[in-house]
């Protein structure tokens, strides 16, 4: 129980950043391919237009990849007996607080890519929707899930 009482900020595992990178590349690949195909195959497209399309897409991919380390650095969460606090996002940075008494349901989810990295997402449900901690170490996610489940039960609501 002392681990929970110690309210410190936790960060995401380092390989989360790698997983994000791979996921972004996989996601952008079809777009890049499509843009190149469009640039090459559309008849009558002036040279500058096709160059513009390709450059725009490449810039978008680079921007996405460049932003990820910033987001990784900003990501933290903190769990104590009363509430779950987390900060994430860039350029729009959000600081979210979820009281334990409001937690209805906690689950651990992972897609195929996350599984390859031994990562998983933690979903915390309240009556107002879901709050997510992504890309946690798989076993840690399980452990946190149990912790929150316990805390949500033992904190008495009036």
């Amino acid at each position, binding site marked *: 129980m002392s681990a929970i*009482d*110690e*309210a410190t900020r936790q960060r995401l595992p380092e390989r989360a950043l790698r997983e994000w990178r791979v996921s972004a590349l996989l996601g952008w690949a079809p777009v890049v391919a499509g843009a190149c195909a469009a640039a090459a195959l559309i008849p009558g497209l002036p040279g500058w237009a096709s160059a513009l399309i390709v450059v725009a897409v490449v810039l978008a991919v680079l921007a996405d990849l460049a932003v990820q380390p910033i987001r990784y650095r900003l990501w933290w969460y903190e769990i*104590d*007996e*009363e*509430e779950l606090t987390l900060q994430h*996002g860039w*350029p*729009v*940075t*959000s*600081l*979210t*607080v*979820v*009281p334990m*008494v*409001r*937690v*209805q*349901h*906690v*689950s651990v989810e992972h897609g195929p890519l996350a599984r390859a990295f031994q990562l998983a997402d933690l979903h915390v*449900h*309240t*009556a*107002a*929707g879901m*709050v997510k901690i992504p890309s946690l170490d798989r076993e840690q996610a399980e452990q946190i*899930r*149990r912790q929150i*489940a*316990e805390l*949500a*039960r033992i*904190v*008495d*609501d*009036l």
Partner: protein
Amino acid sequence: MTSEPGSLEPGRPAAAAPTGQETRRLHPAGIAILAIKSWGSLWFAAVAIIAGAGPAVGIPIVLALLVVIGVGVALTWRVTTYAIVDGGLRYRTGLLSRREVDVPASRISALDTTRGILQRAFGVVALEVQTAGGTGKAEVVLHAVALPEAERIRRELGHRAADATPAPAEAAPGGAVAVEGAGGASLAAEPAPAAAAASGPRFTDPRALPEEASEEVFRVSPRDLLLAGLTSPSGAVIGAFLAVLYGPAADVLDASTKRSIESSAERVVESAPIVIGVVALLVIAALSVLSTALTFYGLRVTRDERRLRVRRGLLTERTGTLPLDRVHALRIVESPLRQLLGFVAIEAEVAGWAREDDTVKTIVPFVHRRELPRLLPALIPGYAWPEVALERPPGRALRRYVVRAAAAPAVVAAALAAAPLVGAPLGWWRWIPAGAVLLAGVALGVWQFRAAGVALEERRLVLRSRGLARTTVIALVDRVQHRRVTTTPFQRRAALAHLAVALSSRRVVRLSFVDAGMARRLLAELRPRTARARAGLVRGEG
């Protein structure tokens, strides 16, 4: 005697069923009522058929359709039954595809009656069984029951609700979701802090029916109705028209100008198309004023220990009920014209059993602002009109409010201004609407900045903002689900942030561009009470 197949306990002999639990059909008037309703909804198709196929062929077709529908309605009436069994309502209907609904009394949040013109004609009422939040679609509608029968159903189901423990406000039926891996234990889906804040009584006395001890909280007056109609958007049309013709403006003009205006008005009247257009406009506006008056005619709000009951309507009398513990915020809405006169509307944000059922329901459509301090606590205990001043966004936020509101109008204005460049030959006059639109956007931004404010008073969060109408949301802090402060790098430099407070899935109240320090302070202060906090236990101990 229950004799239907497939009863809940197949082995139970029919003779053991006590009286009062018989299966019944709806009142025969239901056939006529439903038939008329179905025919009514087909009038458009009927007109199309007659117009398309010609009267000789069309009318027989339409008549045949009406007969078929009538027969269908009659047969459906015959197979529709209901019974009060084992403390719940059992409803069976459906001609081709059967629909069977069993609603336990503990899940029934309200039994509302509606008396429309049709029901009145036949001396029956329609009974709606509300389960989800009391505001969504009714789970079961008994379209025609005699008044004494409706009372009997109410009594029997009310009794069972009283016997069942815990009271529906505390029970966690279908909406409760088990926390995974916690060995089957479940949390209450709907926290009951409102009950604590409202000092809601525990419903333990089986003889105490909810209908007792209800007090009238609000009643609309005819004058209010008229003002409500006049200040509605279409009412404003009439008002403007009359004001122009007979208002103060007329007094300012000298006699000869007035005469010439009146004579040219006569000439205008002689010009038929304009007259028809204007008359049509006035008729439409008058009709909607009338419909406002009819809808809210005789509106009465009564409250008993567990719910609010809103009765209204002239031609169709409706009662809607609102379980008090499902209300998680009150909204005071002031539309621009009404705000000028000092009138507000009071709405309730209501949680449903399922996320999609969260809705907003109007409790009091029209009342003067000065009544709010008295009215809010009377409507729902625990709520009150704030007495403290609201904290406003800092001056440096004004620019951002204006930019946000004027962004879209600026695009429109730019498009108008640049129109000639892309081939649309608009003259110099295009600058006038362009400027007007831009000015309107800027004015809206300033207006929104001035309306924004927040306060925390005695476990109540008060958040005021303006979209177009100024809206004040009053929520109990114990109802807050999660809260969030959002910034961008630019805002961080100006020490500004956005505050969002989630009350339920559809209802997130936001305040933009507030002081970042204040936002964080609110983030910390908006925590629900817990038993540990109350007992003064210190975090981090043992």
